[in-house]
């Protein structure tokens, strides 16, 4: 199939390449340069000064936000994966092909609804006089303070991640060789043991990738921690929006963004290694 690049071929290949180089790679590379610029009298000056890195890394609030973000995203990845798995398992193994198509269709819908509107909607459920507290009140319980808590932030992350995680888990479970499971049953392996010793290892790659996506999405989200979590304790993404929008401290925001990218790359690399560990292919 290999041939010399022709005008015909380049007409189709080049536009995307050019666009993604110009408007995807260059902005990210520029972010690196920007992190070494300085801000004097509210204007940015090009340069090569590590001052932003030194300033940001010396701030306790930065490391506090880093720890919070890491903890929240890890928790979101684990909780979402754990809550999604029974659902994906049931759809993969208990529903008819028609039911599966419906489940997939329904799980795709949330991608096309506004995340902001859904977060606002959760405020209606979780606020002190909100739906959940009114219902609990009728049972003589509460009121509980739900909004502006870590719990509410996690509800937001779950709203963001659950549909994607269910779909990714589902696609990895659907393609598991059914004979493996029958073999386990024939060998008198119990239901739950089959799940943990056959189904989960067989679908490991997809399950880990799904958790990784939940981690990435939660790590970068600033909406849930602000509008459900109350913005306190602060996260890295909140720090970026604050640093960018209030004043001209873009170089410092760049430092935060690059630290986030580095962290995500390490986590993604570790997750993918873990996913494929022991799979000699």
């Amino acid at each position, binding site marked *: 199939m290999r041939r010399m690049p022709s005008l015909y071929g380049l007409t189709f290949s080049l536009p995307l390449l050019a666009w993604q180089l110009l408007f995807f790679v260059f902005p990210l590379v520029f972010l690196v340069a920007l992190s070494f610029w300085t801000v004097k009298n509210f204007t940015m000056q090009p340069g090569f000064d590590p001052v932003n890195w030194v300033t940001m890394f010396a701030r306790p609030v930065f490391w506090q936000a880093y720890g919070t973000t890491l903890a929240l995203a890890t928790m979101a990845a684990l909780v979402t994966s754990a809550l999604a798995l029974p659902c994906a398992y049931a759809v993969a193994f208990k529903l008819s092909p028609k039911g599966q198509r419906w489940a997939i269709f329904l799980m795709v819908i949330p991608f096309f609804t506004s995340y902001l509107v859904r977060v606002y909607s959760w405020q209606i459920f979780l606020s002190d006089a909100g739906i959940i507290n*009114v219902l609990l009140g009728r049972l003589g319980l509460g009121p509980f303070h739900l909004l502006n808590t870590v719990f509410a932030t996690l509800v937001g992350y779950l709203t963001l991640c659950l549909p994607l995680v269910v779909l990714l888990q589902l696609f990895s479970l659907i393609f598991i060789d059914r004979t493996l499971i029958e073999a386990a049953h024939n060998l008198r392996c119990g239901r739950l043991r089959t799940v943990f010793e056959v189904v989960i290892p067989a679908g490991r790659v997809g399950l880990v990738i799904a958790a990784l996506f939940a981690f990435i999405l939660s790590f970068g989200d600033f909406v849930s921690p602000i509008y459900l979590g109350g913005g306190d304790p602060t996260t890295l993404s909140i720090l970026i929006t604050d640093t960018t929008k209030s004043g001209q401290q873009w170089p410092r925001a760049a430092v935060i963004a690059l630290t986030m990218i580095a962290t995500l790359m390490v986590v993604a690399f570790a997750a993918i290694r873990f996913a494929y560990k022991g799979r000699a292919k």
Partner: protein
Amino acid sequence: MSANPANRSRLVDLGLRAYVVLAFAFVFAPIAASFVFSFNSDRFPSIPLGQMSLQWYQAVASDPLVWEGLRNTLGIGVIVGLVSTALGFGAAYTDFRFKFFGKQVYMALALLPPTIPVVIMGLAMLAYLSRIDLSGNALSVIIAHVVICAPFAMAIVRLRLSQMDADLEAAAWNLGASEWKAMAHVIVPFTLPAILGALFITMAVSFDEFAIAWFVSGLNETLPVKVLGFLQGQVSPRINAIGTFVFVLSMGLVIGAQVLLSQKSKE
């Protein structure tokens, strides 16, 4: 229970099915609540429901800023859809047809952008575009949205191409068609449903994207950026009215795409 394995397994099945229903209830609760409360008169929505009212729709419809946001959103969405579908089609065809050195890097560039957190993309775009004097207008939103939408278009078209017999194009060449003719008479007609599907899906993605748009749009705010503004200011059930409207619009696009994409099964 353990005495009767069949019974026990039925109970587990029932439990699993109930769990699936519960998971869907969690996913759809905020969507449904937003719909219900958009017709509810209370300033601070909760239960029991207040009176049925269209006041939030009226408030939204009489807000010139909302109309301006809607115009921006629609204009930007249509252009983003056209451009990212064209770019995505080219990339999908490249992957389908050509083998070349560095193809993995090419494919990474074609697929990676949606995995970068939007705050980071937003900041990088804002800094870079303002450096080259392209920030703070509708064009900057279009540029940024095409970056994240083109991968979706590429994936949709690529999926369709993988259902095509690769010899079909070669057969057209053997019959004397030029590469361009084969493209126009074989490839494009075969992928047309996917092209239209990609067009709708990328438009829907652009309609809902708020974070990058918030960073780069300046005064030309799109509707989702306006919603973010409402959320920051005095929270108001107007969000529900806008949300319901945008939901109906997006779902129209998605269902349209679904109908087009499922036509393949009728051939």
